[in-house]
């Protein structure tokens, strides 16, 4: 929820935000009303994906940038379906 406070404060101060969060904490993003959230189906502590899997990291970042660019209102949550698959 620490990052949730940052997101809310930043948005009220004119800084747009996008947040990448693991599925275990999706409810936190929803409860706190985060403006733009990308949820990954990864274990806790691995929000972008498995270590060394830079292709997955790139896809997650790409999804987040798209959401940052296209959202027209707050409270948008999208969940990526890709399961966690370490190499």
């Amino acid at each position, binding site marked *: 929820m*620490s*990052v*949730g*406070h*940052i*997101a*809310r*404060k*930043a*948005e*009220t*101060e*004119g*800084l*747009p*935000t*996008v*947040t*990448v*969060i693991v*599925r*275990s*904490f999706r*409810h*936190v993003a929803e*409860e*706190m*009303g985060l*403006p733009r959230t990308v949820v990954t*189906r*990864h*274990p*806790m*502590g*691995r*929000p*972008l*994906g*498995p*270590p*060394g899997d*830079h292709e997955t*990291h*790139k896809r*997650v*970042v*790409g999804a*987040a*940038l798209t959401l*940052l*660019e296209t*959202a*027209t*209102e*707050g*409270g948008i949550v999208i969940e990526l379906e890709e*399961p*966690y*698959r*370490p190499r």
Partner: protein
Amino acid sequence: MTTDSSTDSFEEFKNSFSYGSRTDLSFKFLKGLSSEEAGEFLGRVLQEVGELFDGTSTDRLIDLVYEWQVKGYQPKAAAKRPYVYEDRPFTPLAKPLSETSIGLVTSSGHFVTGDDQSGLDQDDMTQDWAIARMNDFLRAVPVLSEIPKDLPAAELRVRHPGYDIRSVSHDPEVALPRLPLEQAQEDGRIGRLSPTLYSFVGACSQGRLKNELDDWIHRWKNQGIEALFLVPV
């Protein structure tokens, strides 16, 4: 931890993975399960491990642990939820993303070697010590570490009492995605990635964190940051 756990009940056993005699931060979610649920989880884990003997993929075991971890973190009906808001603060991008300066902020607990600021009065704090002092972290003022985006990975450290740091220790990109954001800059997808990245320990006093935010946001704006890419762990 050296406490005698030889006579633990099953309830004590499952709870001991959360800051107890068997601490493992990937499995502290067991404390959030009932004994019946934890028993079902462990039974299914053993079943899947048994399947591995005959060459089954590890995918099902990973999925099983992931699903139960999600279940373990869901709020209980009686739990106090102090940060539930009805409003949805929102600021649109002021200009195209391809012209926007992005700041990267994570609660991963990364810091630059030689710039270790836990916020607690202890030098050279190890991960084990941090876990042992979790309650002190939860009362502390968070410290915002500045990380040059071109810093060699060998000069990056991580320590955090609230999550399993094994993955981020192997590869900081797991929570500090410098490479894809730099690639996005090279590709013209974003204006730029801010030259300084930021990390703090998210397990901190939430009230004190909120008191810091005017200063943090002022610092980010002074760096020319126009949007934030946030990664909680």
